[in-house]
């Protein structure tokens, strides 16, 4: 049976991704655009993520050891080089919301020994908690370092009664020894997709948002379905000349400011960042 499966579908098994029009016939391919000119670094997304995804508060000592569990973090840079160019950060700070980039060719995926992390048909890099054995190879190979390991049995201390009543029943509370990461609020996508399917339609643009995108006061995060050519996200990608299947983007149009982080590592991320703008005349 499996052998015949192998022979019949040989071509699809030998296909390397991403390729042009990979999601042409797929109903969904989730993607994001983060406008760094709109991001004000307020941390609303971070807290929203804690609330939505049952992220553990680890406390000062463990945070200090580098064992924090923030799936989305606001990075604040002062400069692009290796040293501050000016005495003061004259052009403000550089805020960067960093979350799992949901890479199409995710470096974390092929290295997992048990296949606990893999690519879903709708283009998400998913983590199966109960399959994870905790080898942490995915984290070692993630260039963005956005995978978070349960170094401790966080549920023991993170939600003293009655804080546990806040936990989102749609999201697993992870126990010690498993890797976790941003899921693009898969539970919301799942519920939305199911609802749409029952109604015999596809999800409309903006019908389901990730918690971070929903909270973001400046709407710097745009989330949507890249497979839908008319979705805002797809139009933004196109407008910014970013192609999912390319690792070096066409930047021919003037003023295009879309880019993907560490694209030269051939990770093909699903998140496009828009360059931060500064009025240098000011």
């Amino acid at each position: 049976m499996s052998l015949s499966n192998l022979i019949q579908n040989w071509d699809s098994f030998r296909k390397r991704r991403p390729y042009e029009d990979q999601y042409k016939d797929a109903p969904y391919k989730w993607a994001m655009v983060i406008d760094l000119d709109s991001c004000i670094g307020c941390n609303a997304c971070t807290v929203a993520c804690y609330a939505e995804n049952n992220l553990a508060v680890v406390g000062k000592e463990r945070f200090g050891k580098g064992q924090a569990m923030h799936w989305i973090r606001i990075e604040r840079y002062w400069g692009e080089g290796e040293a501050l160019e000016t005495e003061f950060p004259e052009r403000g700070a550089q805020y960067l919301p960093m979350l799992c980039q949901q890479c199409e060719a995710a470096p974390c995926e092929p290295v997992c020994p048990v296949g606990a992390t893999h690519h879903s048909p709708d283009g998400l890099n998913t983590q199966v908690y109960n399959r994870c054995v905790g080898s942490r190879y995915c984290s070692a190979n993630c260039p963005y370092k956005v995978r978070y390991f349960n170094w401790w049995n966080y549920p023991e201390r993170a939600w003293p009664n009655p804080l546990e009543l806040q936990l989102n029943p749609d999201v697993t509370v992870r126990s010690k020894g498993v890797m976790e990461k941003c899921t693009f609020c898969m539970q919301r996508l799942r519920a939305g997709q199911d609802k749409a399917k029952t109604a015999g339609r596809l999800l409309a643009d903006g019908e389901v948002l990730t918690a971070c995108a929903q909270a973001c006061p400046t709407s710097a995060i745009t989330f949507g379905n890249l497979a839908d050519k008319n979705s805002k996200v797809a139009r933004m990608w196109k407008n910014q000349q970013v192609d999912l299947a390319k690792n070096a983007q066409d930047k021919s149009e003037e003023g295009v400011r879309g880019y993907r982080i560490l694209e030269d590592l051939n990770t093909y991320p699903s998140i496009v960042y828009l360059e931060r703008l500064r009025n240098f005349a000011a």
Partner: protein
Amino acid sequence: MSKKAVTLALYADPDEAGNALRELRDCSVPGFKMDDVIIKSPIDHPELTELLNHRPVYIQLFTLLGVLLGPTTGLVLIASAQASFIYQTRGGRPIVPFPPDMVLTYELFILSGVLMTVISTFVAMKLPGNRSPLYNASVSEDKIGILVKAEAQNIPHIDEILRRHNPTEIKGDHSR
């Protein structure tokens, strides 16, 4: 067939043992064949084994079988497993990727080769098995034993040949 009996001669010097074997080979005891001679020695003595009739070793055939079948079966199993595990899309790699599968096939090639070799060796060596009653512990120390199986009535004749080459000891089990 008349009753078979066994006799064991122990030699301290491989040269003497060799001479004894040569004489056995050339002797004309009725019903006695070189196939009935078994050498027991603490180390391998190819120069003595040569004196026996050619005793072929078939192990490598099995090894060949192992290295042919093992990796092929392995590769097919791995590829079918990959094809059946529907969520195998990982890191943009093909679902059935060649380099990793080759690595694994290579390891299976060696593993099956080794295992087949070992299994066939034990079969060929008839191990595990029981030692013959005439086993003498000194063949694992420094003596070379020549064990001859022959018709009971020929045993004295053979013993005599063996005795001619300064054995340290001759033991016989004439009961059989």
